[in-house]
């Protein structure tokens, strides 16, 4: 290797005042063998960057270490053509967060340069992953309702080829049965016509769209860009990405006996919509016109016995139905008994307008009984806002039933029929909805290039479903654009690296294939992994899983991190100068540390932190290496896992936690305290807490005393 290393130190922003940069220069030149070590008062200046570029061009520098501010806060020197760059965050992680002009701080500075130098020297230039043959840019949209049609329309207008599959014989979905739609446009005051017929016509007329009605999916083989689809009618074609907009179905009202289900004059919102569509509001029992109608909200929703969640749209649907009824019958009375009126977003205006109707009567209340009485349905309500329990003699009762996702039962009734080892369909997060973590990753799902949109994803109204479908359409286009160029998608969008498998040494243990959160690794009969690179998100979970350490990225691998660990200088005196290795997730923990530094929050100078792609990519060998080389403790800092996980790779931090159990065993064998290796969860917003977490761990280790293997 004829790599030439250049180390560039910035002394601006107080770095030069806090750190003895002469010492750092010495380490860079002598230990790291840097050919050039240069210092500048502000490396972010164009002149300073030009000088680095000149070194690359004229002096043949191929590896660069920049010791300056965090690349998240200054991008001036992150990319230099012709060389690989590694940034040591001297400003946030060092000068602004440690005691200035201090021996321990200077030692940290030296170690940071050692680690960065090793990292950049061990890295290899990235090569674009070759685009697979037969890569398809067509998007498959499953479901021809409001969300599906909106997605198709958006895609077609972007010039993308789309295949639309609808299991019914005609397009339209749920909207086909509607008398009117909840308002989706300003002024949001009155029910409006559904946009679906116009959308269906536009979609049918588009040259970019192929429509299959009366079809379901028999199977989908392959990976993003290469999905081979077979329909129930035997049709086959290839698509690149998939948008699933299969919607939701109403909750089974027959289970709501306590709300009067079984009485013919107690109907569901869907039944009532059918009445509204033909404009005949009559009692099913005797055909008499219904003058007085009670709407019962949350019928089965927000109910531990039925659907524990809010179905989001029922309140607006009821308001719409009350309005449609009142318009048809100005003498009619519509009573609405709710738990809470929930009309998200602009629908509050609809609620307000519906309230203003003198014949609409609203109260919060608990339904005590719904019983037949003298040719009416008697509805008894307690806990009302009227100050006393009330009794309404209704001609008709309408149960506002909630939404059950169409994916609720994919185990017995698969929809996508994917041949992923993880299952035939999108995995669900809660209650059968294939939702995404909504704060950090809206629109994402856990299958690369397969997106859910509309009520299948989580309960929502028409306006939200339209926005959701457009979002999913854009995500599909984005995914195909990136993947076709060999790049990763969310959350490492644009990343050109990809895992190499040194299969010669594979022992077919199947850990990588089983642990990959995205099902990127199939197996052959023996259990050797068969990568589907276009499914891969570059998290490195396979790398963390592999006991043979045969998985590697060109710029991130087991040897590289092991070498970084070994490059750190371990002082003999473990009591005075302990060393703590912190493996920090790049997604939340490292940015949180940046913010802590920006806020001048200080933390122990005994900490040596190494960024990792995900805690799931942490190979246990690194912990062995660090304890063997004399580190007194190891801390893993990653994202929250569990029900409301924030792990960007879904289960990386959870896997790390599991692997820690094996580490504990190992520690026991070595007669080391298991407290020496621990794991912590932080979110970006925990930047204020993070220095305390680090200091607390350092204290724990000091209490335990130095690593007895130090110096051996």
């Amino acid at each position, binding site marked *: 290797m004829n790599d030439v290393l250049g180390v560039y130190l910035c002394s601006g922003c107080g770095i030069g005042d806090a750190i003895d940069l002469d010492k750092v220069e010495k380490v860079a030149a002598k230990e790291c063998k840097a050919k050039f070590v240069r210092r500048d008062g502000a490396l972010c200046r164009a002149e300073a960057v030009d000088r680095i570029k000149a070194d690359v061009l004229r002096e043949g520098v191929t590896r660069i270490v920049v010791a300056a501010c965090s690349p998240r806060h200054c991008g001036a020197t992150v990319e230099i053509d012709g060389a690989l760059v590694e940034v040591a965050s001297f400003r946030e992680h060092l000068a602004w967060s440690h005691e200035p002009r201090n021996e321990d701080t200077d030692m940290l500075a030296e170690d940071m340069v050692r680690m960065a130098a090793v990292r950049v020297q061990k890295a290899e230039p990235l090569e674009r992953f070759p685009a697979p043959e037969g890569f398809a840019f067509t998007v498959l949209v499953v479901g021809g309702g409001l969300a599906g049609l909106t997605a198709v329309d958006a895609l077609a207008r972007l010039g993308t080829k789309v295949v639309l599959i609808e299991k019914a014989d005609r397009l339209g979905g749920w909207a086909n049965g509607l008398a009117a739609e909840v308002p989706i446009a300003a002024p949001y005051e009155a029910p409006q016509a559904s946009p679906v017929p116009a959308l269906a016509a536009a979609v049918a007329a588009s040259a970019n769209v192929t429509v299959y009605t009366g079809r379901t999916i028999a199977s989908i083989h392959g990976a993003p860009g290469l999905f081979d689809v077979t329909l129930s009618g035997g049709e086959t074609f290839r698509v690149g990405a998939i948008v699933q907009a299969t919607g939701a179905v109403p909750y089974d009202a027959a289970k709501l006996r306590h709300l009067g289900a079984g009485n013919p004059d107690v109907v569901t919102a869907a039944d009532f919509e059918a009445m509204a569509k033909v404009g005949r509001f009559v009692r099913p029992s005797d055909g008499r016109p219904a003058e007085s109608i009670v709407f019962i909200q949350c019928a089965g929703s927000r109910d531990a016995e039925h659907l524990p969640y809010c179905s989001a749209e029922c309140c607006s649907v009821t308001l719409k139905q009350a309005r449609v009824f009142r318009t048809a019958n100005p003498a009619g009375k519509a009573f609405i008994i709710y738990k809470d009126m929930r009309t998200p977003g602009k629908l509050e205006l609809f609620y307000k307008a519906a*309230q*203003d109707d*003198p014949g*609409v009567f609203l*109260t919060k209340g608990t339904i005590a009984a719904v019983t037949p009485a003298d040719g009416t349905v008697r509805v008894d*309500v307690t806990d009302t*806002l*009227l100050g006393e*329990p*009330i009794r309404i003699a209704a001609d008709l009762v309408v149960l506002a039933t909630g939404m059950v996702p169409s994916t609720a039962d994919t185990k017995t009734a698969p929809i996508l029929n994917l041949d992923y080892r993880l299952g035939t369909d999108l995995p669900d997060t809660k209650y059968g909805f294939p939702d995404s973590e909504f704060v950090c990753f809206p629109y994402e799902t856990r299958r690369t290039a397969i997106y859910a949109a509309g009520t299948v994803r989580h309960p929502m109204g028409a306006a939200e479903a339209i926005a959701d479908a457009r979002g999913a359409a854009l995500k599909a286009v984005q995914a195909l654009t990136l993947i076709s160029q060999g790049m990763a998608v969310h959350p490492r969008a644009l990343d050109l690296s990809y895992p190499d498998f040194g299969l010669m040494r594979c022992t077919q243990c199947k850990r990588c294939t089983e642990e990959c959160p995205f099902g990127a690794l199939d197996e052959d009969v023996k259990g050797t992994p068969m990568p589907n690179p276009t499914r891969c998100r570059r998290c490195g979970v396979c790398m963390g899983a592999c006991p043979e350490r045969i998985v590697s990225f060109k710029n991130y691998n087991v040897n590289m991190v092991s070498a970084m660990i070994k490059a750190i200088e371990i002082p003999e005196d473990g009591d005075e100068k302990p060393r703590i290795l912190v493996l920090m997730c790049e997604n939340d923990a490292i940015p949180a540390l940046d913010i802590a530094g920006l806020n001048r929050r200080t933390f122990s100078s005994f900490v040596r932190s190494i960024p990792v792609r995900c805690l799931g990519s942490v190979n246990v060998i690194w912990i062995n290496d660090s304890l063997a080389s004399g580190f007194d403790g190891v801390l893993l800092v990653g994202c929250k896992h569990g029900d409301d996980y924030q792990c960007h790779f879904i289960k990386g931090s959870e896997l790390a936690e599991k692997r820690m159990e094996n580490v504990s065993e190992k520690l026991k064998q070595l007669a080391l305290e298991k407290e020496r290796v621990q794991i912590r969860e932080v979110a970006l917003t925990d930047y204020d807490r993070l220095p305390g977490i680090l200091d607390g761990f350092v204290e724990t280790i000091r209490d335990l005393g130095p690593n007895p293997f130090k110096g051996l």
Partner: protein
Amino acid sequence: MTTFRAVQPDLEFIADVRASGGETVKRCFQCATCSVVCAIAPDRAPYPRKEMIWAQWGMTDRLAGDSHVWLCHQCNDCSAHCPRGAKPGEVMGGVRAALIKRFAVPRVLGEMVHDLTYLPIVLLIPAVLLYALIQQFGYWGIPDGEVEYAKFLPHMALEPFFGGMFFLMMFSMFLSGRRFWRAVCAGTAMPTGEVAWTKATWDTLVEVLTHSRFKRCTESKGRFWGHISLFYGFAALFFVTGVVVIFAVLGLYPLTLWHPLKVLGNVAGIALLTGTALLVMDRADREAGGQHAYFDWFFLILLLVLGTTGMLLVYFRLIVETPEAAYPTYYVHLVAVFLTILYLPYTKFAHLYYRFLAMVHARMAGIPTGATETAIKAA
């Protein structure tokens, strides 16, 4: 065993409330901000939150038996703070208007005064009665000589006619007041027996004279000054008129311009007009962009006509001495007096006794007169 109240919304009542200033009634979503900000609502079961939903649901019986409707002085602190634009203060006014119509004896008069389409009949009744009276006992035309209104309608006809009518009005007031009292006792609370009706009445009278509760309104100081000016102007005019009737019977009439009674009457007339003008401005301001409350405007315009014609009578008689203008003005003034005094139980004026009775009832039933009363006393 839970007892359930059978609910049957009274759509006509809701329509009445909406037509009389409460067009926003249905917008309330029961957050109870109104009850919290109200300076005069009692601590327990404060208004107007509960009245808002009763009105939304057309629960006429509930509202008829609710004394709180009348304890409200329409300060509109609640309307200013309502996050939903439901204007509870205005709605309470609308509820009172709708209730005045329902308590009225005979009910048909209540309905007529409430409805613009009946305005011609409402005006024709006094116009025709007074015309007949003048035809019979006075001179329907412009009498000769200096202006003396008795020439147009002699005291011997005027006083018995108005006296008789006044008695009928009092009887109607008594019947509707009794109906109201019973409803409130049944619907809100029975008198506890701890406070004698005499003391309750005396205390209420003091409160009315000092406007002590009205003073606590913070949003509409204009209404306070308007009302107190109108109140004392009207009371003084009522007193002066009563004394003048005695003077007239004793033959001491007419009085000169500078007679103390005359001066008091003129000052009171100006006070009445000023007060009414303030209230008119306040109402116009509150209704800006909204629907007009006919029931309120009827009474305000009536007071304006009453005050203006009253002042013009003096002007035409003593200052410019123009009989051609004086006698027609007198006729209009008599019609206005009739409408004000004798339609009292059917117009907004009826709040005079409903509110008085409600305040007496509140004292006898032990309903505190205001959440902040203790706080005010402490301050």
